[in-house]
């Protein structure tokens, strides 16, 4: 069984009389350890799909099964617990907590998990090392550059060793050089730490880093020029 199974998911927004349907019966599977890029025109529903998989938005219909849990059936509280244990989310703008230091920001997801203080310290140390920011542990977000902040954001996303790391345009607000650094870092997270990665991006070069590339077009998923569905993937 695949790590992620999105089955026939539809998302609708009611906007007065008309209904907007950014996702229309989308199906997708992601294997453990894969690095998937998700591209598509602006407004095609990329963020919507990513947020559904991350469990921070609710699908109108369909099911999303991640590591054997159908997250569409979880209550709000249970879904939050599930996110704490299974999701690492990298935002476009890092979204660090401004009053907390780099160290405390990275530690935050661990506080929600059953873990000793010593274990937490060890994990934060490893995560900060992975993004090469050990020396900045006691700095506040405002004392860091955009690239450094994003690296702290990545450390925070991987520190709890989540089932899947999702990133919504992680390089969207960075310059070329920093973008390169961050993409390099994400590749390492996938290859060296073996984490499953789903990355939404506008940038074709960034998308090319991924092992697998899919596109969203008019509410449907296209892979290698073909519409994907659970069935086609299973028989492939």
């Amino acid at each position: 069984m695949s790590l992620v199974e999105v089955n026939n998911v539809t998302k609708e927004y009611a906007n007065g009389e008309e209904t907007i349907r950014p996702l229309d019966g989308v199906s997708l599977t992601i294997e453990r350890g894969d690095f998937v890029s998700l591209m598509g025109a602006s407004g095609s529903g990329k963020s919507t799909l990513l947020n559904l998989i991350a469990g921070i938005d609710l699908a109108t219909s369909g099911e999303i099964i991640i590591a054997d849990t159908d997250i569409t059936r979880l209550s709000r509280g249970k879904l939050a617990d599930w996110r704490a244990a299974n999701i690492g989310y990298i935002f476009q703008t890092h979204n660090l907590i401004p009053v907390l230091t780099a160290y405390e920001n990275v530690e935050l997801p661990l506080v929600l998990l059953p873990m000793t203080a010593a274990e937490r310290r060890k994990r934060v140390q490893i995560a900060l090392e992975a993004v090469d920011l050990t020396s900045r542990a006691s700095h506040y977000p405002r004392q860091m550059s955009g690239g450094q902040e994003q690296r702290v954001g990545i450390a925070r996303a991987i520190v709890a060793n989540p089932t899947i790391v999702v990133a919504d345009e992680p390089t969207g607000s960075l310059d070329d050089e920093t973008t390169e650094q961050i993409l390099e870092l994400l590749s390492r997270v996938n290859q060296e730490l073996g984490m499953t990665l789903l990355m939404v991006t506008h940038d074709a070069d960034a998308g090319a880093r991924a092992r697998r590339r899919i596109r969203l077009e008019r509410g449907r998923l296209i892979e290698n020029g073909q519409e994907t569905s659970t069935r086609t993937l299973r028989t492939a």
Partner: protein
Amino acid sequence: MFPFAPYVIKSLWRHRARTILTVSGTAVALLVFCFIGSVQKGLLALTEDQQADRTLIVFQENRFCPQSSKLPQDYATTISKLSGVTEVVPMKVFTNNCRASLDSIVFQGISAEQLRVCRDLTLLSGDWSAFEKQDDAALIGQAVAGRRKLVTGDKFTIGDVSVVVQGIFESAVAAEDNLVFTHLDFLQRTRGVNEYGTVTQLEVHLADNADPEAVGAKIDAEFHSGPVATTTRTKGMFQADTVADLAELIGFVHWLGYACVGLVLSLVATTTVMAVQDRIKEHAVLQTLGVRPLGVFRLVIAESLLLSVIGGMIGVVGSMLFLSSTGLSVAAEGVTIAFRPSWDLAVQGILIAVVVGLVAGIAPGWQAAQSQIVNALKQG
């Protein structure tokens, strides 16, 4: 939620100007609340202590100010013969100010033996024998001593009355800490006018099985056709009647106490609402990381609770220090209401701060917990 304590504290500190203003506003309101509470308790103490309904006060009929009540001292002899009466204490009362005042000095002239028996005083300085031996000696309550900065050995003059402080006492009855006790005959002879043989009031102590009302009626009947008619009431009623005007005012002021609680509620709630609106996105990020909606609710409650309790503590401690250091009281017509700090008032103040902190956080906490993560993340 304990691991989030640094986050809550640092968040409050990030907006320190707002936090300090809210905390100090809360502190001032709680200080006023406790002060009003102590005034109320002082008033209640006049009518609710043990002595209040087991002791009678005989006063001249239709007189209110101690200066104008003049009873023959030998009434005491007549009264002490009535059944149910155990002791009659003739007292001369002199005050520098018959109207309601925050700094009136009330002298009570009582014979030394009766003072020793009928009042529960603990001398903080000076001694009894020096007081007993000297004509113009006085024992003064600690609140008066504090207010007028008097020590044993000082000479102390109010109007025509000049006394020498031979002791400072603490009384079991808070209101008595605002009195000056002198010898009865000293106060009768002073002020040029020789009032020897007349007293202001007679304090009648009763046997345990005596009915205060019946004895009171008997006393008044006894002197009805005498040279001076009397009005006899229990000490509690006498004091309540005497400070009736003040009591009405104090009863009104107690609404201000509730207003203070309302003030704290709106102050803390406003600050918490602002804090939540500032951080809609931040709370969404926390939820994305896996904080439950209930967890966000608790974080908001923790913030409002902290604001209110810190402010409350400062206010309560401040009011207790203020009350105990100033020994304030208000007196009217020789009866004083003492404003004293008390533990149950402090506990009440802290409890109010806790409840207000919790209540103030409910609406903003609920709002924060209910927000849609995806929409909230889009906020700037």
